[in-house]
């Protein structure tokens, strides 16, 4: 008995305060969690709106689409549908992940409503070397993807980066990162297009 008494003498403070702090955290969480979730949605929506100019609102077109990764793993992603003010589908967007030069690169990729053209990409998160790989954010690189045909893309070292086609000109000195971006596109696009077209979400521009 005295053991138990001793125990409580020694550790009541710890027990009480863990409970108290647990509550404190929970309260903070309860108060702010909505905002936090909303922040994430806002950010994604903002990027998607940047890509799909006419978009007014978004909804989920397909949930947890399974994408076969190169590493024989399967990654899942949601596909969002962008609707304009009149409720017409103006495009689709999804989050895509792949490995870059140093770390993972997370992109938001958009395609048009018929899933025929890319509408470009935005970097959600990347850890590429400043001055090298982080140039994938620069417009001269990313604009090559806008309006490129939604199919397999190809990376070339030299070419005309103004010309819009399935040939993407690499950033000099950051071939690897450029390649990574192209690879992400290629990994995702087939499955996504298939998904949208077979499931009939695309093309019926209503």
């Amino acid at each position: 008995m005295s053991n138990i008494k001793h125990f409580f003498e020694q550790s009541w403070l710890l027990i009480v305060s863990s409970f108290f702090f647990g509550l404190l955290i929970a309260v903070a969480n309860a108060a702010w969690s909505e905002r936090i979730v909303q922040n994430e949605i806002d950010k994604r929506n903002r990027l998607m709106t940047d890509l799909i100019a006419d978009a007014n609102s978004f909804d989920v077109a397909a949930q947890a689409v399974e994408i076969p990764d190169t590493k024989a793993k399967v990654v899942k992603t949601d596909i969002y549908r962008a609707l304009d003010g009149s409720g017409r589908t103006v495009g689709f967007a999804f989050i895509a992940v792949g490995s870059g030069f140093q770390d993972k690169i997370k992109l938001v990729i958009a395609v048009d409503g018929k899933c025929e053209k890319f509408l470009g990409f935005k970097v959600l998160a990347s850890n590429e070397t400043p001055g090298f790989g982080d140039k994938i954010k620069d417009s001269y690189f990313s604009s090559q993807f806008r309006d490129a045909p939604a199919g397999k893309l190809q990376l070339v070292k030299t070419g005309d980066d103004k010309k819009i086609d399935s040939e993407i000109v690499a950033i000099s000195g950051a071939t690897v990162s450029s390649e990574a971006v192209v690879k992400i596109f290629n990994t995702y696009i087939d499955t996504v297009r298939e998904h949208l077209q077979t499931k009939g979400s695309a093309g019926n521009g209503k």
Partner: protein
Amino acid sequence: MDTLTILLLAFISIVIINNLVFTKFLGICPYLGVSGRIDMAFGMGLAVTFVVTLSGAMTWMIDHWVLMKAGLEVTRYVCFILVIAGAVQLVEMYLRKFFPSLYESFGIFLPLITTNCAILGLCLFINLWEIDNLLEAAVLSFGAGIGFTMAICIMAGIRENLNLADVPRCLRGAPITLITAGLLALAFMGFAGMIR
């Protein structure tokens, strides 16, 4: 790629390419403090390796099997640090009681480690990288420990040499160690992008 290759690459990557000290700035305090002599540095490295492997695996389990299931992710940090602190303290007492010689060689470094951000940092990075199986998390943690050991031993060797050199007075100790670490980080950039 088969699992073994993936694990091997993950290991090499965290040891050399994404070394905790040189790329993630984790565990800098002991890196500066305990790199004066090679034997001490090695003991410290072993202790970190041991604890980080243990806590990497444990926090992964708690995170995935308890917190995520119960939707209690908010308490993640508190749980992580309590688990680490508790485990370290237990292991230390245990070693001290039953394996005094082992305790002398690396156990004495254990208390230093609770407040070492390499441990908690790695657990958080494992969470951030969305590692989804226990084995990979364990290998990564072990690799991180080995990487730390390597880094601190290299630094200890360098500092033993610098003891014999005429380093400007104001730069002795922490400053020159930091500058050396900077040059080491520069050197380790050579491996960047080798494994992706």
